[in-house]
């Protein structure tokens, strides 16, 4: 008998090791990976999202749960992707050239993984060419760019321009403290998010269908 409730609660509690052990056990006992994913991990992350919206959970809980979810996915991913070319959407993320700020972008990365994305985090001070290369190599669905400085946020415009020139059809989203929705529209990004939680929502919306 699959104990999905226990898996779900462990993800909600952010108990990484417990999630790993429980998912391993469930798989070992012949549990259906898709079912474990949907009714265990995804169900949990939905609860966590709700609690965050209601102000019961904050960033540390969110990140701990996403990290716990990631542990479970590590086990499920090879099983689910057997035969399939690509089951999970791929997001390439990074902080743009000239900017070395890391934490906001990293939080978004962890949470995107928690939401079921395969995340390629290129780190900080990322040149336009590296973004393009990573997108091609990983057949990515989404590019997330971050900047903390008004002097570096302009570099996002350059990346989006280069993507078009390269003929890459990929959804782009941007974020970071000095950014606004207006700026995102102006530079032709597909989406903007003011914080990590809404970034994940926006990302899921953009890659749907």
């Amino acid at each position: 008998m699959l104990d999905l409730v226990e898996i779900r609660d462990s993800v909600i509690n952010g108990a990484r090791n417990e999630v790993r052990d429980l998912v391993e056990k469930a798989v070992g006992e012949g549990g259906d990976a898709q079912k474990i994913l949907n009714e265990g991990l995804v169900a949990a992350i939905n609860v966590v999202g709700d609690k965050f919206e209601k102000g019961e959970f904050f960033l540390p809980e969110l990140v701990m749960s996403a990290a716990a979810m990631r542990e479970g996915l590590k086990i499920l991913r090879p099983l689910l992707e057997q035969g399939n070319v690509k089951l999970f959407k791929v997001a390439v993320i990074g902080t743009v050239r000239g900017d070395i700020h890391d934490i906001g972008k990293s939080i978004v990365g962890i949470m995107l993984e928690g939401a079921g994305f395969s995340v390629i985090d290129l780190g900080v001070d990322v040149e336009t060419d590296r973004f393009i290369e990573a997108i091609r190599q990983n057949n990515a669905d989404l590019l997330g760019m971050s900047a903390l400085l008004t002097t570096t946020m302009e570099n996002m415009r350059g990346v989006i321009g280069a993507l078009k020139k390269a003929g890459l059809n990929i959804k782009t989203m941007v974020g970071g403290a000095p950014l606004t929705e207006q700026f995102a529209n102006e530079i032709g990004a597909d989406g903007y998010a003011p914080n990590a939680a809404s970034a994940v929502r926006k990302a899921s919306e953009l890659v749907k269908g």
Partner: protein
Amino acid sequence: MKARLTWFSDDEMARIHEASLKVLASVGIRADSKKALDILKANGAKVNYDTNIAFIPRNLVEEALEVMPKTVVYGARNPKYDYILDKKKAHFTADGFAIPYIVDWETGERRESRSEDLVRMVRIADYLDNYDEVWVALASGDLPTPIQGITSFVTALRNTEKHISHEALDADEAKFMIEIATTIVGGRKELKKRPLFSVEQSVVSPLKLDEGAVEAAMEFGAAGIPVLCCGMPIPGTTAPATIIGTMLIANTEWLAQLVVLQLANPGAPVIYAQIPCGANYSTGAVIESPESLLFRVGVADMAHRCYDVPCMGYGANTSAKLLDIQAGNEKGQSLLVGALVASDVLPGGGELDDALCYSLEAMVIDNEIAGEVFRFVENFEVNDDTLALDVIREVGPGGHFLEQQHTLENYKNMWRATISDKETFASWKESGAKPLDNVAAEKVREILATHTPQPIPEDIDKEVSRIYEKAKSELLRKAEA
């Protein structure tokens, strides 16, 4: 360790104390109360009954300091709100007493305060976490003057489960208040153990004990009700025009009250509650000022470090007439100083216009500021867990701490805003771009619509009503006579 603020050196405090003894022995204290003069005379003070001046010798002061309790218990209708004033921690409360005006919480207009405003004010203080007790702030301008005090007292007891603080104009009013509290708590002995209320009884600066105030204080002392011995000397008008000379008057007045109260009832609970203040030298009125702030440090020094007794100094006080930047500045500074000196009683919540006006929205905002300053003075231990060396080792350079169990266990100790805006511009705008007083007004409406304190049990409340009715008719009759 905790962040703490002190001012005087030990030598300086000793000099102020010695100077106070000189004033008491050679200038004397005027007491317009035969009862107070008699008790001073019976214990060796030289008394001139023509001028009502008593010259208090050193030994009486020293004996009073010896016999007074060093900590004070504040009981509450609900025992979960009991606490001890132990000179280690500031306790926030509303402002008092008989504040004549209120900024109407619906129209925003300043008007005379009425009895229903007091009900609202007390309920809000009952609800808000950082109010440890409730000072009975507002006058009931709709009632005849002689019964306003007793009515406010009963109203407050009925509308909060927390400790309340009030004042009495004379011994008769004091007796009724004691009788009502005795009924609620279940006997005089129990009231002494867990006094449901405390009182602020004032000196008239400089160096004069008012008949009604001091005789009421003596009644309260006998019943074990903590007395906040209070005076409000002002540099240049009711005290010398120096900060230190004003401190000397304040200290001397407190010692005079202490001697009378301890002679009348040895061991009666007292609080050093002098509130010297700065002044507007055009009108003579008290104001919030850097000097007012400094006096709070001086008072806490004399109380805690020189005499080992709990103290009171003003807290969320402001001269501002509305909830503007001046109000925020003055309230914030003053509460922070109060917290840093561990002012055992730290009032002022909801106050505007140097205690002439009141605001329910200000109560909510002051609650937020109090939460901030209390966080500031928490005890922070330096140990293996707080140093978190292991966690730093695990994360390493360039990593982040969000995925650490240690973070999950500890981040909730960090201060979090309840009404202040800490959002991004976008989400602030999305939620209506509200200024803080609008947010506070919404909170006021929410509290009034949802919060009802536990009432006094019906049979006891019946008895309270009986005493209250008796008090009203006697106080009215006395006023007419």
